């Protein structure tokens, strides 16, 4: 009796293993099976596919994405500054400027963070578009039907991050199963906010008093390095950098410039 019972149990176990194996094979290797399981796989349909993560990876790994942001920050928050001071082959945008001697500078970018955000947005849009195309192609290659609208995006520079929100209505469908994505968010680690905040403070000081003390800023913000170089024409070149991330934010000012010698 005992042996019979054991045999039955063994048989059931074998059947169960076969069923489970068949199910796995079904869901893993047949289209129907994959479609059925897709709704319960986060952010993707099928194994190896996570649309949000793939999109984020596509953007963050893009060499141009990082280069563009770094270039913008290095040029006073402008991708292609018109009014700049060329120093060491870098265009230091004038963020506060007076052409005259003995006069306080006039703020050239009153809303600096917003301005940098707009510049970054312009610069990364093509990269976002490229990544969207890549994701869509990837999905289509996997047999998905895709419907999408034009995308919009926003950049928000906050403490510790540059956040990029992509408002992109993406609907993917395979068989009877579909999924809708309304937006994607990419968070790039960055100390840009801190650097721009210090820059704004320096600019305000320059606009009022014409000079600033780099050591004072470094005392308050140990991770921020402030380098200040005065030029012959009255321009002051500022190079702000984060000691950990090595990000740079560079800009120029010309405030209360003094002429050489006796200007009578």
């Amino acid at each position, binding site marked *: 009796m005992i042996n019979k019972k054991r045999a039955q149990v063994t048989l059931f176990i074998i059947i169960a293993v076969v069923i489970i194996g068949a199910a796995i094979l079904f869901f893993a290797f047949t289209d129907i099976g994959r479609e059925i399981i897709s709704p319960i796989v986060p952010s993707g349909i099928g194994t190896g596919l996570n649309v949000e993560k793939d999109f984020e990876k596509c953007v963050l790994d893009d060499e141009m994405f990082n280069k563009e942001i770094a270039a913008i920050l290095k040029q006073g928050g402008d991708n292609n500054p018109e009014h700049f001071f060329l*120093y060491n082959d870098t265009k230091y945008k004038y963020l506060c400027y007076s052409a*005259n*001697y003995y006069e306080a500078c006039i*703020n050239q970018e009153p809303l600096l963070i*917003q301005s940098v955000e707009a510049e970054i947005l312009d610069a990364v849009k093509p990269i976002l578009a490229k990544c969207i195309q890549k994701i869509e192609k990837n999905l289509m290659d996997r047999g998905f039907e895709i419907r999408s609208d034009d995308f919009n995006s926003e950049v928000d520079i906050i403490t510790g991050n540059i956040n990029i929100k992509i408002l992109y209505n993406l609907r993917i469908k395979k068989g009877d199963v579909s999924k809708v994505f309304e937006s994607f968010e990419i968070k790039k680690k960055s100390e840009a906010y801190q650097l721009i905040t210090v820059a704004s403070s320096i600019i305000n000081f320059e606009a009022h008093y014409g000079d600033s003390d*780099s050591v004072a800023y470094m005392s308050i913000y140990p991770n921020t390095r402030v380098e200040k170089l005065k030029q012959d*024409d009255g321009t002051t070149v500022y190079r702000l950098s984060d000691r950990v991330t090595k990000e740079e934010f560079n800009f120029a000012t010309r405030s209360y410039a003094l002429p050489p010698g006796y200007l009578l």
Partner: protein
Amino acid sequence: MKINKKITLLEIFLVVSSIFAFAWIAGSPYNENLYNNEIEEILEFIFLIPIVSAQTTSSTSCCTNLKDGSVCQDLPSDTCNELCASSCIPSSCGAVSQCELGCGFSKSEGTCTLNTPKASCDNNEDCEFLEDPFCSDPKCQKGCCTIGLNTHWYTPAECQIRANAGGVSYEFDRSVENEQACFRQSSNLEEGACVFNNNENSEGNDCLITTQINCDDSKGIFYKDLLCSNNALNTRCKKESYVSCVNGRDGVYWFDSCGNRENIYGTVYNGKIKSPSESCNPNTNNINSGSCGNCNYNLGSICGVFRPGVDRGNMKGYTCRDLNCKDSKGKTRIHKESWCVYDGPIGSGSIFSARGESRGLLSGLLSEFGLFSTDLVGSRHFRQLCNNGEIEVEPCDDYRKEICVQNKKKLDNGREVDGSICRVNMWEQCIGYNTNEGCGAACIGKCIANPDCRVHPVFVDEGFKFTTCVPKYPPGFDLGSTSGLESLAQNYIQDSLGDSGSLGNLGGIASQLTDSSENSASQICSLASQKCTSVWVKTCGLSGIKWECVKNCNCHKAGFTVQMNNLCISLGDCGVYANIEGKVTTNGAYVSKKGKHGATPLQPFFLIPVYFSLAKILKPIPPSGGFYKDESDILNLPTGIVDQFLGGFNRISGASSRTQLQNLFGDQLGTTIGITTITLIGTQAILGSILVGSGSGFFGGLFSGPIFGFDPISIAIGIAIGIGLTYALGCGKVETTEIQFQCQPWQRPKGGDDCEKCSKDPLKPCTKYRCESLGARCTLFNEDTGVQECISIKGEDTIPIISPWEDILNKSLYKYTDVSSNGFKLRTANGECVQALTPVIFGVKTDIHANCRWATQPFDYENLTDSSPDFESLVKPVYVKNHTLLTFLPDVESILLSELNPNELLDSETEIEIRESLLNQLEDLNIYIKCANIDGVSNDADYRINFCVSPGDDVREPVILNTLPSNNNVTRFDATEQNAVFFISEPSECKWDITKPNTASKTESFNMLANTMTCDTNIESGTLFGWLCNTTLPITANENKFFVQCKDQPWLENSEDKTKRNIGNIFEYVLRKSQSELKIDSIKPNGTIYAGTEPIIVEIEVETSGGSNNGEAFCQWGFEQDNMIDSFKETNGILHSYILNQMIKGSYQIFVKCNDAAGNIAEGNTSFVLDLDNLEPVITRVFSNNANLFLATNEISRCFYNETQCGFSLDQSIEFQGANSQVLNTPLIENIDYYIKCQDIWNNSPDSCSIIVRSFEDV
């Protein structure tokens, strides 16, 4: 007595040659009409200088959008359209609404930006434009914002926005003093363990280290000062799980297994939170420690990942990283410590402070050598700082526009370290303190009080002593301009760059807007060009007849040269002094003597070894601050001073310095400052272009210099004529000798061998100024790019080829003849000799930039000796291609007159011999020219220019060339007399009367004129504008006419030839009286002015009327009646305004002084009180009436309400009607709560509610 003809020949040459001077003119060639037209303007300008010295000479327009992308810039009107992308508005940007400056408040970020143009803000929906450009609005007042465990220095809105973004609560504290105090608070936050009961987790409770408020928000239980790993809390967090750094903290910290920060590594664990001061080894930096992670950023250490081989003291992969440095002298500098570094001596220095062996070397000069300002030419002040283990440099503004000051600072652990800043060099004020008398008691007081100034006494002799206030750190000059080599360098660089060498928008448009400072350098140096007159008496004693010096005898000694050169050096890059390499150049100063007695003092170039030694020996001692020692200290300067630092000081100098500079020492020392003014301004006006690289010294010699020049000539004449006179003259005769010290801009060393030394020290960046100080060929390539290089420009290394300069010559009058490679002759257009006493402007050109020297006999360019035949001509430190000369050729009579007393007669034989000799020599005069390239290589062959003087009688009538004041000018309203100066075409006697002689005969009319002018008939006194006569004219009516007539050749009056004297036409001169007195109609503000915050902005407004031109005047203001601080920013009209933007509350009295063009003066003053209103409005009464809720406030207010809470923003509220009044109302709605907040006109409002009103039914 027989005259040695050879001697006479030489003498005549010297006489003639001494009246030449070299100059060069960049611009239009000489034009007679231009000359005649412009001279009037020049004289008018001179007349107006004391009154309108600060007038802006060029108009500006406002460009709202420039092509380079910048906004709202004032541009010179003539270049505005070229630079402007929009239309140029003929007004200053301050008056253009789009460019009105205010404060840009970002609604989304809560941040404020100063000095924001209105248009920039209005174009952005997110930007709210607040009127105060310094953002003193309460919205922008930063406070300490605590979000989570961190504190930030935010505006209230910024704090709220950032907290909301993170989904956490916040605290905002306005009472925290400053940013640093705020950040210190983060370490003082009361932290503790926030425990979350988690009964399902058998391992224990969850826990977080946070603040009470955050814990409450998170519904946790807060245990102040306890660590999460404390066993008593029964959490799952295990103590000291791993080690890491913490953002915003210095030390190496333990973390528990839940990821919560614990205590500093090495601190004994007791389950409680410990501050750094309670942790291991407090107040040390713990660098190299492997057991204590209590790093201290302020002491030079901070937590970092352990780097094997670099760091010592490994604490689980982290360390207290050493941020300190060793400076160039091996001294340990802590992180953030800053100190001053210099190129050589700075500030005041003296041979007395030099050490050791040099004393012997210089002992001969020791007694004469006083203080001088020692900063080397090309030098700069540097601030070096230790930054994260590296030494960085922050150069102070070049040209010594800033100086580095250094002080001791005490650290928390008691150690003293250096702290330094670059601050503005206030040297301009030093010059401004001087008056006509030099530096008197009041000036000395100010000079001593100003740490950037120094009292410089000159005491050569009893009759030649004065005190001046000079810069302690003299400013640098644009050496490219002062040497005349600017264009050469620019062309070379342009050629080198080619088409592909664009440097982008290098330097913005600033360079195009740079005002010319070239002339000012020479003008400033010339302040030390002083004349000492020694007096000599002829004595007849047993020892024989001799001339004895009785006054100012020391002016003939070396001390005169030394003291004057010290003054010269102290004014700027002037005189004979050293550059940063210790190279001393020769041509910055020279001494000349006019008169036959005494020796010529030592020439300044003999001091080269002295200054070379001093440049090496004197050590810099950093000044200890002065006006302010810390950037933030600028905010604490007294009212009135801070404005000067922020730009006002330039206007102070603009208002007064020019006048003061020009008047400096003028009367007392008998200098030619006034004349120098004529030449400087005159040259500019005549040429209608900018003069580059020259100045008063040059043009002083050119146009106003004594015609007979100076020492060698006078000596020669004195000897020559003296031979004939010795026995004819009696004993006791008094004669004078003038010793002139000429101070000019410093000369760059020849060639370019030292150029590369500019970049030898990476901590002293090479700049244009530094580079150009090293040599005439040194030019900065890639200027201001970070990769600049001081190169030696190539080319122009050939021997200069000299040729006549045709364009400078007035060909209707003169021509060059017999032109060859060796010279030419100058003759009239008809080929005849030049008429005596007629100004002749001519010149030579060189094919390359050259420095030309000339003499009356062949000479060696390099052979500078004290006995050079004409030293003056040898010291012109300018390299140019066009070299101008000007002369008045004398006649025989004028030469004789200059040396003979009218009462002293020669015997007839001697006179005939002298006359014949003079006549012969005047028929064949030569000067020899040598020009050297910038390497100092000159032409070997002599280049000769030949002249001759027309031998005939003077038949020209004297002409009044111009007057001062100009004809038809207006005098003061209260004037009863007016001093007037007349410029005559030749030495003449002039007379005047108020009635016109009624005769056709010139002789009769001249005799009928009743009043005689005081005329300088000395031929040596001629200026470019002629010979001066002056007189005082009565002003009796609204229109005053005067009739003036002149008679030339006054020296013929007692001779047989007196009939040969020519009389000019009657000149009608009119002066009009001002119609009314100048009045100040109003001065604002007055009374009490309230403001919301400090600093308070106050606009002084003055209105004038009357005077010479309907109220148009130039006004200045000051806090004391006799001490005008500055001119009004807007002035020279009838409305005058000035903005004081750093005022603090208190009582003030402002004094105003206005002058108009006629010299009318009006004075007035106003008193006002500045008070602060920083209290929020108080609701004094609440009532309902006719279904309305009424509020009464104690001041004009706006009120808002919200129905749910006090912490509402205005856009979440409803405003009461009756804004900006004291009674406001809104419809009364039953059963709601009114959370009411009121703000006054300064936006003072409570953080919470002003009042909470609830309606209820009265039962």
